[in-house]
């Protein structure tokens, strides 16, 4: 079995090809030449700005109920109508960007940190530590990840924090497997063997030689995991395991809208499209990063 599920095949070549300055430079040039990546960056920038300045730009308070004005169709006053409690759906959509982006970034940050750390430890030190970590990885990987996440959220009770914790717990294994595989092959390379021979500490080897080499691959995977986390969070929220009301969150907005689908389809379409655009722009970026950072694909 190949170790990683993503296509970046970690092998010795990477280590040999990486010559720091020129590599980053070429990668950067390649990245900014990618039209989709720039588009993704632009859209993401807009979303991030919307999330940061939600208080300033949203036309209404996203939590303000108005029972005299519920389930309104789109109009000049309410761009995408109002929901079942008379709250302005557009304002909720803007605030939703905040929550979704936060979920994506935090889950990805958590699983990257934990996953890389454990992967390096397992791969570099081997032995019992490796065995324990990899058995845990195997067990987690035998679950359909969504089922495990559902069970975990059910144990701790649905909330935004628990949702993120559950997703983080489920996703780190992907990084660990990948990084461990890379470290295993890096460990045997001449310059690491050499570094050991001249008495470099493990700590120094990890920080000076291993981490810089796994970094490009991890960055790519991390960017995809942001996208995946947002999608998974939406699915869990759709099942009623997401943020607590009245939090404006895209997945729970979709879940709320499903009963109104036939009367107010825009309530279902808008959050769905918002999720799609966000995830798509992140994927554009991740894709371009992969093209730029993966030497095997370079011309």
């Amino acid at each position, binding site marked *: 079995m190949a170790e990683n599920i993503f296509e970046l095949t970690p092998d010795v070549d990477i280590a040999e090809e990486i010559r720091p300055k020129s590599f980053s430079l070429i990668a950067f040039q390649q990245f900014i030449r990618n039209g989709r990546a720039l588009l993704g960056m632009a859209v993401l920038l807009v979303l991030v700005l919307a999330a940061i300045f939600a208080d300033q730009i949203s036309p209404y308070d996203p939590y303000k109920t108005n029972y005299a004005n519920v389930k309104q169709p789109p109009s000049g006053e309410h761009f995408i109508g109002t929901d079942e*409690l008379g709250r302005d759906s557009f304002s909720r959509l803007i605030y939703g960007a905040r929550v979704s982006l936060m979920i994506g970034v935090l889950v990805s940050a958590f699983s990257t940190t934990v996953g890389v750390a454990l992967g390096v430890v397992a791969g570099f030190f081997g032995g019992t530590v490796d065995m324990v970590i990899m058995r845990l990885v195997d067990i987690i990987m035998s679950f359909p990840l969504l089922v495990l996440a559902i069970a975990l959220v059910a144990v701790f009770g649905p909330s935004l924090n628990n949702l993120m914790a559950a997703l983080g717990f489920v996703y780190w294994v992907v990084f660990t497997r990948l990084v461990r595989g890379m470290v295993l092959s890096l460990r045997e390379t001449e310059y690491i063997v050499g570094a050991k021979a001249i008495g470099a500490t493990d700590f120094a080897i990890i920080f000076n030689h291993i981490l810089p080499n796994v970094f490009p691959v991890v960055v790519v995977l991390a960017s995809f995991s942001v996208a995946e986390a947002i999608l998974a969070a939406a699915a869990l929220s759709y099942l009623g395991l997401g943020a*607590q009301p009245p939090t404006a969150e895209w997945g729970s907005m979709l879940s709320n809208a499903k009963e109104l689908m036939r009367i107010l389809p825009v309530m279902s379409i808008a959050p769905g499209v918002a999720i799609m655009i966000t995830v798509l722009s992140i994927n554009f970026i991740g894709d371009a990063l992969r093209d730029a950072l993966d030497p095997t694909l370079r011309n």
Partner: protein
Amino acid sequence: MNLKTVLIYAALVVVLSLSLAPAAADGHCPQEGGTFTIGVDTFLPMDPNTAAHDWTFYAITNINSMLFRIESGQPVGDLAESWDISEDGTVYTWHIRPGMMWHDGNEIFPEGESREVTAHDVVYSIYRQYDDESSIMAADLRNLFVSAEATDDHTVVLTLSGPDAIIYDKARGLTFTAIVAQEAIEHYGDDYGLNPLGSGPFEFVSYSPDEEVVLRANEDYYIDPCLDEVIFRVMPDVPAAMIALEAGDIDWWGAVTPGDDVGRFLDNEDMTVINFGCPVATRLYMSVDKPPFDDVRFRKALSHMKDGNAINAALRGPTHVKGAGTAGPGVAGYVEGLYDEYHSYDPELAMSLLDELGIVDSDGDGWREMDGELLEIPMFAWNSDPAPDYVAATVDAGAQVGLKIRPEIADPGTNNARRNDGEWGIYLGQGWCGEGGTNALWGRNGWISTLGYVDEEIFTLLDQSAQNLDEESREAQLQAATTRIAAIYFEPAFGFFNIFTVKNNYVKDFFGGEWTLNLVTDDHNVWINEDER
């Protein structure tokens, strides 16, 4: 009378006669054959001892005969042609219809080798439920049960230790004692629920879990069913089911229809919306044995701080019914005007009540404190629509009067567990249908007793009414219970909602809306008009 009025009346007469004309009371079907596909959201194996789910009972009540069915809220004969009740209401004598045969052409009874259903089968079925401690025979009945005897092949005498006023009740009466064949139970053992066998209008054909149950007409039934086939199709996702209903993939949605869809189907001339006739209340329960909930003024404040009626109307759409109390309009024990008396929207009053209790905002952060500490109340609810919306609305209303409410939504299991632990906080809750429901909720050992809802006077009133066969004084006892519950518990109410089911109009002579699903009775015989499909 002007022309317009005349026209409207004329149209009404035409519509009425059209809708009544095809009724097949004489056993003649306007159109024979056809498949009736019923959409339900869950379905479980069909053993009456264990099946706890409503829609499963829809199938059981067509496969098995019951002693009686419920039609328009009244008991009508089924396996029992008629019955007498002794003066004191403790002895029921059931007269079994002769010539009712067990379904044949199966593992137990090969084609043409069936036998008649007798009084002994009825006695066997009753004891099977009674002897199985874990069967879902209602405690009310179990506690009164003395004996069941077959005095001859067609007479069953059921003796109780006291009168049972809710023996006909949908939720907790004898309706759930489906008559089963001993041969089938012994042959299949624990797998009986997968191979049910009865003497009802439809025979069991096949069961695929989470998918469908197929029944076909029983030609030996004492009325010839117009339908050939009945299919129960399991559809866990309600919005998807609504699409299926509209697309004609199912003919009747037999479970609760969301309010907004009801509104849409009311405007759809191809669909008929059927009222189940049992409004369900949405209200707040709380741990009434713990401060500050133990003070009625606090409960009053919670009630008056929110515009319950407006919230309920927004969330329930056309199924909304204004009102409060343990019983809804049309249900025994209903008291009018409770909403206006106890739950009207009055945030000023709510604030002054809180001030009076010493729950005030002394540090000026906009939130009230109790004993010098921020009062943050968890609000527990389950996680399916529209519960989270009620929570959002309550949190919002609390904020208006400076009361901090923290939403705690979880799946139903976790939510129940919190209630069973009597966790401190407020709970979104629903009432239960019918008198049996009132008993199971507020009565001794009731569903919410763990939260401290324990009042001897209410228990006594409910116990008495459950054994009172005199309609009038029973109604008075139930109303007294409703009033006392409202006055001492002050359970903050939003309002009621009606349970509606929806059918396509090509399903004829079908009235739905009962716990026993009546497809073939003396007065109705459901048929499908294939030309309209």
